[in-house]
């Protein structure tokens, strides 16, 4: 659920992908900018300290080293004042002592200035020709103090640079930690973006691809989950509508197919569909020289039933007989409502004898299943059936022979099966395609004048 501060349409209708990613990018950009500023603060400190090291500390350190060298030179010149071989040499050394004691760098350092002045005064006294004082002990002390001062000044210079470098190292260490944090944030953002892209773009696209593939293959696809991205949701909605439209079209096509092939009263194949299927099956059987039989059946006294009880009862009789036929026939046998109360059968892979037994059983079961009407009237139903071996004949010829046999069964007293004699070349021209005409609804067709 989107937070409350997002627009209402975002919370209810999904997020616009462009704005959502722009929002995420903006949030990350702000965070990244803040981190950069945070990181830049360290960089600035490092730059300032390095600049200070360059501009102040290093010159100051060099100054300290130079001061230490001057202090040491002051000590050496002092040695020359005391040990000079000639008065001129001693005077020359004393001049240099005075010069060094007046060095601005020494004057700027209180310790060095005081000690240098003390040394200069001592050496000036010692250098006087009339000096009779043994000054070796005092000079040893002063010389030692000068050496220690030179060491101290040198160490001070080193410490100046060391302090700055230590501070810079600490800042660099801090900067390294901050940089690691920034990199971690960037990595987390990239990971989050990849996750979001996979979760809200790639996966929905994969689901769409699967849905479209399912539509192509005619399979029912699963409905989409609610998409977070508005654009993805729109495409998913369009695919859903397409799927619904295709489903409706498929249902309509299936319904049309049923209407085109099924008799709506009995649920059997209609005559046209049966003829098409039977023709193919007969050709297959003839190609492989397999036995196959056809049969024509007609309900006995159906016209009287219609006349006496009405067409509604007649329809019930037809439905009842259709159920018996469906239960009696094998799965491989085909049957259709040929027209009115007449049915046509095809028995693939079945010889005449076996078809005869099957037809007899069917007649018996029909006869054993009278139709019980509402007023305790039990309406007996019987079926006459003519059977013919197809052999090498055409479907139409075979049905005509079966129809002839059906008449024979009627003539012999109904509720029985009559087998058509085997076809002869004269009686069964293969080229004949005239099939027996189905009876009109209601009574037996007058042209056939069945008994």
């Amino acid at each position, binding site marked *: 659920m989107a937070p409350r501060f997002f627009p209402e349409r975002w919370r209810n209708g999904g997020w616009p992908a462009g704005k959502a990613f722009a929002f995420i990018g903006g949030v990350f950009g702000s965070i990244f900018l803040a981190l950069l500023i945070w990181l830049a603060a360290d960089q600035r400190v490092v730059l300032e300290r390095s600049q200070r090291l360059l501009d102040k500390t290093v010159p100051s350190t060099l100054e300290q080293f*130079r001061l230490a*060298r*001057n202090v040491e*030179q002051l000590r050496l010149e002092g040695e020359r004042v005391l040990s000079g071989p000639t008065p*001129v*040499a001693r*005077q*020359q050394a004393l*001049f*240099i002592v*005075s*010069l*060094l*004691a*007046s*060095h*601005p*760098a020494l*004057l*700027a350092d209180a310790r060095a*200035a005081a000690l240098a*002045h003390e040394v*200069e005064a001592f050496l*000036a006294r010692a250098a006087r020709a009339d000096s009779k004082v043994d000054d070796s002990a005092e000079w040893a002390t002063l010389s030692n103090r000068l050496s220690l001062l030179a060491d101290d000044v040198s160490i001070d210079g080193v410490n100046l640079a060391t302090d700055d470098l230590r501070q810079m190292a600490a800042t660099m260490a801090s900067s390294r930690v901050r940089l690691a944090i920034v990199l971690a944030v960037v990595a987390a953002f990239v990971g989050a973006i990849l996750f979001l892209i996979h979760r809200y773009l790639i996966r929905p696209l994969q689901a769409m691809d699967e849905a479209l593939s399912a539509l192509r293959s005619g399979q029912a696809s699963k409905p989409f989950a609610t998409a977070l991205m508005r654009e993805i949701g729109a495409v998913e909605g369009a695919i859903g509508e397409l799927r619904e439209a295709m489903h409706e079209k498929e249902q309509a096509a299936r319904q049309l197919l049923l209407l085109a092939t099924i008799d709506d009263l009995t649920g059997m194949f209609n005559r046209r569909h049966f003829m098409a299927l039977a023709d193919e099956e007969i050709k297959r059987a003839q190609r492989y020289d397999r036995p196959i039989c056809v049969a024509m059946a007609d309900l006995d006294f159906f016209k009287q039933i219609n006349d006496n009880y009405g067409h509604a009862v007649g329809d019930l009789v037809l439905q009842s007989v259709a159920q018996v036929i469906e239960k009696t026939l094998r799965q491989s046998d085909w049957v259709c409502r040929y027209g009115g109360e007449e049915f046509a059968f095809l028995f693939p892979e079945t010889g005449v004898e076996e078809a005869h037994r099957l037809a007899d059983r069917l007649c018996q079961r029909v006869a054993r299943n009278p139709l019980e009407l509402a007023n305790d009237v039990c309406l007996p139903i019987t079926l006459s059936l003519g059977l013919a071996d197809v052999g090498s004949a055409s479907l139409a010829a075979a049905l005509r022979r079966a129809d002839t046999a059906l008449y024979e069964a009627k003539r012999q007293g109904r509720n029985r099966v009559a087998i058509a004699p085997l076809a002869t070349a004269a009686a069964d021209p293969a080229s004949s395609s005239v099939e027996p005409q189905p009876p009109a609804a209601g009574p037996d067709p007058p042209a056939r004048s069945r008994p």
Partner: protein
Amino acid sequence: MARTLRALCCAAAIWAGGANALELHVAIARSTVLQAPGEAPAKSSRVSLLVDFNLAVARETCRRISARCVFSYPDFAAIIPGIESRLFQLGFGSYLRTPEREARVAFSDALWRSSSRLLAFTPVAARFAAPAGGELTVEKLRDARVVSISDSQQYAYLQSVAASQNLQVVGRSTTSACLEALYGEQADFALLSVLGAFLALDPTASRTPSFIGPGTVAHGLGGSVHIALPRDDEKLRQTVNAALAAMHRDGSYQRLWRRYFPYDFY
């Protein structure tokens, strides 16, 4: 195409000619060899070392900025007016940087550092010892004749305190002339740049003035020493500064100093 090439060549030639046309008049404060009364001149005078050093630095600077330099050696006091009047472009005179001078000329980055100190013969200094005891300094000096280089910072300071300390200020053109004033008893004390005085003192002389009191950089009497330049030529100042910085970086300046002075004073 050929016309374009000729134009480019002409432009390059003009530019090169312009670059080579940089000519500088360089003034270096002269010195005179001190000769103490009654004594022969020093055999190997050091007083010209500072002049020689300044000349060496000037030559190296001119070489680095690709300038043709003409050298002259006027009195110290004549250099700043010469730069103001565009007679000179560079002035070497161990100039301390003061607000008064900066109003007249510009200064380069620092060359070396200077301090000042009193000089006097010991018996004379004893006569002027501070009544309250302690070391004699220029601030404690009273009722004395003090010599200094005219137009120098030391001279300016003495002038500023002359009335309050009842000092008689004597001006001379060079350090050596100031020391001659001491020898000739025309002055009781000399207030001089320590390095200049050191170079002017003759250690072979039987009688030489001594440094009195501590060295000082206070009151503008010490500090960094610079080259004087015209105020209105910032480009020249930056060019000279860049040359000096390069000399410090590659050690040329330090080697020049060591060639003339056996001690570090920069």
